[in-house]
């Protein structure tokens, strides 16, 4: 229990730092802070995506349905606002809840599937959901044209007192704080999982479901719990993102890219940890932006090379690399050779 309070302290510290980050950026870079914040928002979204996927993966469920939960969250808030005069903010938690309901539905029928069979079943679920949403009556889900989604923040421009970019700064700061809030929630959930009885349960199920069951762990219960936690977080993200980018469209909102990056990022950063997916998001977002700003053409080739190299040279991700560096520095015996 002592460790969890350390963690909480750390999270609070991080929260405080992140809270003041926009203002700091503004002080340091002025106008350009708007752009940096925009990139940070995207990176934070990627971190939420990655961390939420990782929480589910800790039970050994390699889901390819993350786009479905993201889309469910986004469409929930969009449809609510379209059909009724809902409070703008309510759609976000409701988006999370609808994602959870879908996840429980999916999770309960895929309990017995393992490995790639599970992966393909979840992918199929996401593809079918995309088609279903597109086929819903236009007056409800907008059909192929999608739905406009109102912005969460519309800071007013006061001529004479501020510059235009400061309005963008305010808006980005607000979105950034919302995303950071969801990320902090994700981190809290992740820490709770890591520091509670859930960690042994999740890890046991992931490593050997049968042995776990013989030890008294109920696999179905924890697999569904992981599904619920994971989908709630990504549902929140989907709903918030819908407001930020102003619309939902079946092919875009349920696009496979969400799923792909949800799994690529934590692998890159280090699986089954709280820090790994976050470092993964920070790393991949920086790599992409740096390459983009360096090479006029074909920067994504470099991105692909980084992915390939990362697996070859740091198979356990950034976190694994840090661990092994730490070990080397402490000169911990690694092989039995030294231990004997």
């Amino acid at each position, binding site marked *: 229990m002592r460790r969890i309070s350390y963690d909480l302290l750390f999270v609070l510290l991080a929260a405080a730092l992140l809270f003041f980050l926009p203002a700091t950026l503004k002080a340091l870079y002025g106008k350009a802070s708007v752009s940096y914040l925009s990139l940070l928002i995207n990176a934070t979204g990627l971190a939420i995506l990655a961390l939420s996927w990782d929480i589910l993966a800790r039970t050994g469920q390699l889901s390819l349905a993350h786009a479905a939960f993201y889309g469910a969250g986004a469409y929930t808030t969009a449809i609510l606002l379209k059909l009724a005069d809902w409070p703008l903010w309510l759609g976000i938690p409701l988006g999370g809840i609808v994602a959870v309901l879908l996840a429980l539905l999916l999770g309960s029928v895929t309990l017995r599937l393992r490995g790639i069979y599970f992966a393909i079943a979840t992918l*199929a679920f996401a593809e079918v959901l*995309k*088609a279903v949403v597109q086929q819903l009556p236009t007056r409800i889900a907008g059909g192929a044209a999608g739905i406009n989604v109102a912005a969460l923040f519309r800071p007013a421009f006061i001529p004479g007192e501020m510059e235009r970019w400061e309005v963008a700064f305010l808006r980005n700061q607000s979105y950034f704080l919302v995303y950071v809030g969801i990320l902090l929630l994700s981190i809290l959930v992740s820490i709770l999982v890591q520091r509670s009885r859930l960690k042994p349960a999740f890890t046991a199920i992931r490593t050997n479901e049968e042995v776990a069951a013989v030890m008294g762990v109920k696999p179905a219960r924890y697999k569904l719990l992981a599904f619920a936690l994971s989908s709630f977080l990504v549902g929140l993200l989907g709903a918030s993102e819908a407001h930020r980018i102003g619309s939902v469209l079946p092919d875009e909102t349920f696009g496979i890219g969400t799923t792909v990056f949800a799994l*690529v990022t934590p692998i890159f950063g280090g699986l089954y940890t709280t820090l790994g997916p976050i470092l993964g998001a920070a790393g991949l977002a920086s790599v992409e932006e740096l390459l983009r700003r360096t090479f006029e*053409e074909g920067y994504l080739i470099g991105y*692909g090379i980084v992915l*390939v190299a990362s697996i*070859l040279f740091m198979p356990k991700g950034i976190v694994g690399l840090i661990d092994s560096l730490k070990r080397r520095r402490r000169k911990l015996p690694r092989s039995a050779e030294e231990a004997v």
Partner: protein
Amino acid sequence: MDLTLLLQGIVSGILASGLYALVSVGLALAIGVIGIVNFAHGEFFMVGAFITYQLFISFGFDPVISLFFVAPTLFLLGGAIYQSSIRYVLKAPELNQMLLTFGISIILQNLALLIWGGDPRTISSVAYRSIGYQLGGVSIGLVPLASFLISLVIVGSLYYALLKTPAGRAMRAVAQNRMGASLIGLEVNRVYLVTFALSALLAGLGGVMIAVIQSPTPIVGFAFTLKAFAIVVLAGLGNIRGILWASLVVALSESLVATLVPNGDALRNAVFFAIIFVVLIARSRRLA
């Protein structure tokens, strides 16, 4: 419902299974024998399609002739990719394989974009592309028929080769028991190398087919990757013969829904994945 229309739907569906089988069989080999989850498989079609296109543009080669160039090229490409990266992740978790091959897929896609641009290309003069034989109101397309027969032949001969030839038996041996395979004098890594290269070659053949019937673009392979994975899983990992059945089931269902349901063609992907989903779930319940 018009009976001819229904018949046409059935015929089209059956013939369409050829392309599905063709794009899946190489992946089935890679997963079944090597156990590698290759997200870049679709990019092998794409490369095969672009090479076919380039040979046409540069030398005026008909795709049928290009087959003889694409096959060895893709074999070499597959081998090179195996040697430079895949072999290091054979024993790694599936997720590592996914990230690695996803990286390869991004590299290949964007290289193609750099070389050929993003606009769809066309192999313009293919005399046989649009030939259809009319049979009592039902049309049987030459290319679908050929791709159906070719895929039958390829899957059939692959099946036969796996069963009867020493090389095929080597692949099965490695797939069934790595240790046993090395004890009968097989260099397991070399068998893997050849298998992966062959898997790329088969994808390349699919790519030639795609170059004939579609316009090569850098992203033409990706949709096929997902579908090929689904078909391989539906057939059962490593089950080469099952590829034919699985392809037939999904292709025929797609075609029937597209024929019988208003706006049914838009539901093709939904039908495809719904079948995969239901079959996987049902199978998991039956096994338990």
